[in-house]
């Protein structure tokens, strides 16, 4: 007797065109819970945590935004190894606007998000025609190059960076701006990708020839995706600059490129929720392992391997499958 696992959709999941037939509070909760839980967590977490873990939460939110930004590009068929470019560009833009032009953070952050997105898009536009690993290599190189440019030309403070930048009036404001941004990005981009517009973006990844063959200019859509992803990353960078009151070469460091990808891999690609979940696991994990000193990175690496090998689909897809389907072992003849 062989056995195989049967998966059956829960009745409530049977749907047509997003119209649900709801008959009880339980069913409504079943549908609402996956949306309510993260929103509630974003609201409550800042209140529950102590000052140290509140700082960690800021970092979580920033990496979650970078992971979302990575996932937008990945879903459009652009694999980026250079989220640091977006992050660093936003950071430097807001710092420059604040330090040299004396603008308030309330102005520099939104302006830097848009401006950073524009500059990153312009920088990467010439290589948009490259596919696969060639595009990826260029995204890896540009932030590292910018780091050297700043070092060599000593512009914007050179290796010293720019310090003493203005802060937001309160830490609560910092926390809740980031939490609000995270909520908006998570649900907004999920909606965007299931719209017809998102379908075109994912179409470019799956079969760009077929999208071209529909009379659609795929480079124009790639540019739009790049700008959206760039702005999200630049916003994260701009926020962090005003939290740390400092900007310097480390904003272009590899950490900001690699950790978001790790977060997406752990959480599960193609859903944004996976990206956020991954950031909420990896960033605190890295903090918790600080006590281990030099071995921290080793343990961190082991955790990462366990996650990726054990749940290659990502935690989010695993959870969502368990949530929406019954599973049982069924006997198979032969």
């Amino acid at each position, binding site marked *: 007797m062989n056995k195989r696992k049967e998966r059956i959709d829960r009745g409530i999941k049977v749907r047509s*065109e997003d119209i649900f037939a709801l008959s009880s509070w339980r069913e409504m909760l079943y549908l609402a819970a996956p949306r309510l839980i993260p929103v509630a967590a974003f609201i409550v977490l800042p209140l529950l945590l102590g000052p140290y873990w509140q700082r960690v939460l800021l970092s979580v939110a920033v990496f979650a935004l970078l992971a979302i930004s990575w996932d937008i590009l990945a879903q459009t068929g652009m694999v980026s190894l250079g989220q640091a470019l977006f992050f660093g560009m936003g950071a430097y833009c807001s710092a420059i606007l604040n330090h040299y032009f004396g603008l308030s953070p309330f102005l520099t952050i939104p302006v830097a998000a848009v401006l950073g997105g524009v500059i990153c898009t312009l920088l990467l536009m010439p290589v948009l025609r490259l596919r696969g690993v060639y595009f990826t290599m260029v995204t890896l190189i540009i932030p590292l190059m910018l780091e050297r440019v700043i070092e060599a030309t000593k512009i914007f403070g050179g290796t010293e960076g720019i310090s003493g930048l203005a802060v937001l009036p309160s830490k609560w404001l910092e926390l809740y701006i980031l939490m609000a941004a995270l909520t908006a990005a998570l649900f907004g981009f999920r909606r965007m990708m299931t719209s*017809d*517009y998102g*379908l*075109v973006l*994912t*179409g470019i990844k*799956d*079969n760009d*020839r*077929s*999208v*071209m*063959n*529909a*009379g*659609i*200019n*795929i480079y124009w859509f790639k540019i739009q995706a790049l700008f959206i992803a760039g702005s999200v990353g630049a916003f994260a960078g701009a926020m962090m600059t005003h939290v740390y009151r400092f900007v310097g070469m480390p904003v272009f460091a590899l950490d900001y490129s690699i950790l978001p990808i790790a977060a997406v891999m752990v959480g599960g690609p193609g859903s944004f929720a996976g990206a956020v979940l991954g950031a909420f696991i990896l960033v605190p994990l890295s903090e918790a392992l600080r006590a281990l000193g030099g071995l921290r990175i080793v343990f961190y690496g082991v955790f990462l391997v366990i996650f990726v090998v054990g749940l290659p689909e990502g935690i989010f897809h695993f959870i969502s499958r368990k949530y929406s389907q019954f599973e049982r072992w069924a006997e198979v003849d032969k």
Partner: protein
Amino acid sequence: MSETPLLEVRELSKSFGGVQAVNRISFDLHKGDLLGIIGPNGSGKTTTVNLISGFVKASSGKVLFKGRDITSMAPYKIVRLGIARTFQMVKPFYQLPAYKNMIIPLYSPRVKALAGGKYGDRNAVALDLLEEVGFERDNQVAYKVASVLPQGYLKRLELAKAISLQPDIMILDELFSGLSLAEVASIVPIIEKLLSEGKTIIMIEHRLKELFRIANRVIVLNFGEKIADGAAKDVMESEAVKEAYLGSEE
């Protein structure tokens, strides 16, 4: 035939490295034509179509559409002007339902422009178009994900995608290959209907019997060169064609 042809192909050539895939091919296409392009494997049929639709850049020669030079224009621009094509290898978005596969062509700026600047309800249009090519509405095939659909439906989907763009010229690249006789027989009326609506069609085919029933003109290619051009039965009488298909006695 005093009017200007819809499509004029002039001395079109393409070489890949040392291989002359298409060599100085010329032909005209008039409104309402169904032109068959046939020839042995590797004779340059698909390359010719790729050159017309812009997916491959021509080495020399010209393609004129409604008198306008479209040689080596970007594929998406050519589609917007009104030449739509299908691919020999169907590559649908497998994880999406069939009707969602139609959304991308329906998102085309051409569709918007023809509808007077409005897209309308894409899902409803998609379902209507699929029904037209034989996705029976009653058995909900259009809602099935593409990965479970048999080849016959995938080819119909490919055809529906081309129809959705409301092109002046449709290029069908081996639409019948891999289909059963019954499936081909059910698609032929769809093509006849398109012709009766005034569409102009180019078909690349290996299924000659079915093609000759509907084509009013056939071009035969061999080693990248046009070796015959004319009505189906005349073309097959040509010595050069017999030699290309059957080999010569030496």
